[in-house]
């Protein structure tokens, strides 16, 4: 790699041969900062047992103006088909590892595309919808978290199509952010999604949908 790209090798000013890294660390080490006495962690890390977690999750997702569907394992395929139809989707990209029985309700009106071999970004941009599972979901904040695992695919899949249908199994829903973090692997690429893409940049008037999927359907199973 070219000279300027090597870490810590750029030298401007300072002692001869001193790297920026050495200089910055030396400046910090020149000042002794006492550590805090303790880090108090007296905040809540789970919801009260009286809270119906699935109910709370459904309510909080709906607050973001996403569409929430409750399903059972018996009618999941029909619910998925209905959600896609409701959004007018005519083409659908399917990530590797997505359970085949989620899709048995789809009619012939929807063209299915696999991402194996990987589609180009141009191809993905032309597809109407994506369906994924998730890694974990958080009731308190109405959040779903994708970790690019089986049934979720690489990050671009849930980004370029304008409609995202996400299936969440009951056992994947936790109460608080703290519980979600404990279940996640930080070494995987993670996307936390709380409702559809949104902006309030124009006179603080909220508009759902700028660059990410403008339509989010969350199907809760169980």
């Amino acid at each position, binding site marked *: 790699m070219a000279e300027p*790209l090597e*870490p810590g090798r750029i030298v401007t000013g300072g002692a001869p041969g001193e790297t*920026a890294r050495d200089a910055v660390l030396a400046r910090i080490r020149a000042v002794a900062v006492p550590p805090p006495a303790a880090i108090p962690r007296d905040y809540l890390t789970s919801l009260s047992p009286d809270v119906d977690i699935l109910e709370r999750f459904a309510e909080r997702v709906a607050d973001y103006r996403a569409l929430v569907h409750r399903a059972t394992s018996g009618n999941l395929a029909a619910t998925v088909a209905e959600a896609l139809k409701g959004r007018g989707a005519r083409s659908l990209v399917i990530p590797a590892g997505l359970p085949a029985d989620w899709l048995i309700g789809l009619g012939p009106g929807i063209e299915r595309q696999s991402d194996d071999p990987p589609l180009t970004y141009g191809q993905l941009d032309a597809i109407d919808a994506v369906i994924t599972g998730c890694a974990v979901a958080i009731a308190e904040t109405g959040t779903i978290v994708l970790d690019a695992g089986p049934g979720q695919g690489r990050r671009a899949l849930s980004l370029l199509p304008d409609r995202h249908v996400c299936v969440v199994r009951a056992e994947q829903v936790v109460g608080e952010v703290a519980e979600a973090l404990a279940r996640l692997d930080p070494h995987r690429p993670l996307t936390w999604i709380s409702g559809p893409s949104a902006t309030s940049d124009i006179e603080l008037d909220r508009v759902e949908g700028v660059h990410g999927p403008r339509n989010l359907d969350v199907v809760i199973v169980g």
Partner: protein
Amino acid sequence: MSGSPAGREPLPTFAGTPPFPEAARTALADEQLRRNLRHATTTIRTKRGRAVAERPDWEALRLAGAAIKDDVIARWPELLTQLEANVTAAGGIVHWARDGAEANAIVAGIVRAAGATEVVKVKSMTTQEIELNEALAREGIEAWETDLAELIVQLGRDLPSHILVPAIHRNRDEIRDIFRAEMGAAGRPAPADLSNEPRELAEAARLHLREKFLRAKVAISGANFAIAETGTVMVVESEGNGRMCLTLPETLVTVMGIEKLLPTWRDLEVFLQLLPRSSTAERMNPYTSMWTGVTPGDGPQAFHLVLLDNGRTDVLLDEVGRQALRCIKCSACLNVCPVYERVGGRAYGSPYPGPIGAILTPQLRGIARHPVDEQTASLPYASSLCGACFEVCPVRIDIPEVLIQLRTQVVRQHGWRARTFGEEPVAMRALSTAFANPGRLDLAERVAGGAGRVVGRRGRIGRLPLPGLLGAWFRRRDLPAPARTSFRRWWRSRSSRGES
């Protein structure tokens, strides 16, 4: 002309902003600006109140957040090198930059090595601070801002006025006019019949930027947090422009202030509560992306992390002022500040406006080490010390305390010249002279008590045509009239009656 992505006039910078009182006077004369700001700050303030009230443990979260950030700077070298090791182990390349010029040169080198002449950018305070876009333009590299508000600011050849909503000084008609006039020169033009409806304006931005996302080879972002323990870097956002930049290009460069560290993965359970509720006043922002180095087959295959000092180690020098390093750039303090609400962000002369800007900018510019210029020295006076900023700060930065500390520094450095940007230091010195000598205090109180008897009919002292220091003080404020009898006189009369 260089300096502009569309090859026309140069982009404006904050350089040359006059000292705060003068900049504020100009801003105050702008009725439209004041109306837009009042609407914006009132709306976000109310929403934030609701989002915070929902957490019975808010104070516990704030205490944890402040302590975690204090722990970061107490163990700064250890945590920075831990982050470096973990990012490197996960396939990223870590660079260090002492200042903005060094960081800009590193980024330009990476962009050139990737064979790119343009980059897409995620909204980033840090890259604004180092004027990266201007530096890239000088190298012939076009930098496209992709956050809707940043796009409005960039296309309008304008300066941001708020950390969270940088185009808050613009109304929908102005935005429509900017899009119609400027989008064509930068890429896909706006539809000819574009209306002023926010939904249509957002759609125009979507179409305009989509072609840039799909063809960009390099993206540049900042970072909200980076986890030393795992090497994970993250960006919070709303629109999805961040996800586009962080996912589609081959090469990703993240420029991060060295204070953006968190020690452990678990610490996010605090900061993912504090930040969205304080910033956009939501339970959670629409999108948060987290990545650790490079993932084969998913997202950028080259990841560069630039660790930027640029004055942060100077902030460390001041024992009181260093709490500013806790800042997570949520902008809650802007929305509650009576001064910010009236003058807006651009009067502060830096990308960091409002109360946090008033304490951060002077420190980043080295006030702890050497005298600063007059504009910088005027910033600690851009406050009425009402304390609302501390009340809302999610990491409990005592901004009034730091303001007073910095005022002391300014007076020490500038002495009597301080009256050009604020009369308080002068008046405060007069006050300290009076307090140092009981005879003088007695005289001063009697003079003030007399003044109260003359003009204090409604219990207030308004604008007095007084000469000298007292007049300078009253030019900017009115005060409750002082008591007719001074404390010292009253005490003496009590004592002489034998009541002590």
